[in-house]
């Protein structure tokens, strides 16, 4: 993974977090990755307003926003009938104690849920994964988002996760974060999609 190169110049990002300092921390990280100044907003309402009038290529949001839970905002984005808005990659930053939000964010259509504290390594790897993996989008009557039948495998180019993330949700592998547990179990036993 150390040889992986990402050219993030020109990528338009939106960071949604109620806390000014946390927004600045994430913004500094992604500037370090080579993205130009991200747009920073502090609420779901402000995010909606921005997305109505501007295009973004990546959205990073806190799990719990002051005026809504992240699943509400994610569902709103995914149900917008105007590509590419409905397909934008969404990374949710879950607080250390907000694990109960993980399933809800996944079911609303998040690409990744990352447990805080997020490190530059962890965030870069998730962005790299989103940018390099061809993950189809699924639309059903009740779900619109990345295919949740997501194998318990390493990211492209064998990028490793932080070990602390592995137990972030269910005590299972990070891939299980976005996969139905039964399916992961079946696959581990030799099944296939």
């Amino acid at each position, binding site marked *: *993974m*150390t*040889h*992986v*190169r*990402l*050219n*993030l*110049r*020109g*990528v338009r990002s939106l960071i949604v977090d109620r*806390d000014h*300092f*946390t927004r*600045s*921390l994430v913004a*500094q*990280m*992604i*500037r*370090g*990755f*080579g993205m130009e100044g991200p747009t920073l907003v502090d609420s779901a309402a402000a995010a909606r307003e921005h997305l109505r009038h501007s*295009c973004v*290529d*990546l959205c990073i949001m806190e799990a*719990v926003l002051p005026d809504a839970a992240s699943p509400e905002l994610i569902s709103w984005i995914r149900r917008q009938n105007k*590509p*590419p808005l409905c*397909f*934008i*990659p969404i990374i949710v930053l879950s*607080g*250390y*104690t*907000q694990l109960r939000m993980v399933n809800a964010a996944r079911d609303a259509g998040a690409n990744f849920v990352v447990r*805080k*504290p*997020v*490190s*530059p*390594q962890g*965030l*870069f*790897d998730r*962005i*790299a994964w*989103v*940018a*390099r993996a*061809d993950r*189809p*989008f*699924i*639309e*059903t*009557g*009740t779900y619109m988002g990345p*295919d949740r039948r997501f194998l318990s495998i390493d990211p492209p180019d064998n*990028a490793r996760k932080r070990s602390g993330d592995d137990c972030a949700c269910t005590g299972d592998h990070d891939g299980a974060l976005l996969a139905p547990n039964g399916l992961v179990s079946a696959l581990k036993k030799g099944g296939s999609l």
Partner: protein
Amino acid sequence: MNNALVKTYFPHLRLAALAGRAGGTTRASAIENAMLALSVMREEGDATIVETIGAMEGILGEAPDGRIGKDVLQSLLTCADQLVTLAAMFNYESLDQAARSFCDLLEAFFESGDGDAAPLVIHLRALHLMAPGSEPLSGESGRTVLEELARLRHHYGATG
């Protein structure tokens, strides 16, 4: 919408197109640059850590009769989550562990619906000891404090 209908899309992501262009930054360089960018925020981060601990003391101080309800626990959790992020981001290892311990205890109280202020006050004192700007604890003292916090967690059934 018909529930039986499943549509599959293979969207063209602008992020993917841009990221795959020639040039760019290696993972190692990107992370190094990000760490460098974060380091300029350390002073502000230190101040925010101290402010956050103070805010938690304020919230706890308003709890009547040492018993705390779910709304107070939620406010404390929000601050404590923030503290975990800051402590880890700026590599305050003991503070990070103490803040996680505080979070685990709060979470246990949240689950049980019964909060006791006393162990939280002890955690806040420990957080003060480990906060930036405080007299640095020796390695042994730091370990002792963290062990005591672990005992408290165990006593209150916080598994962490």
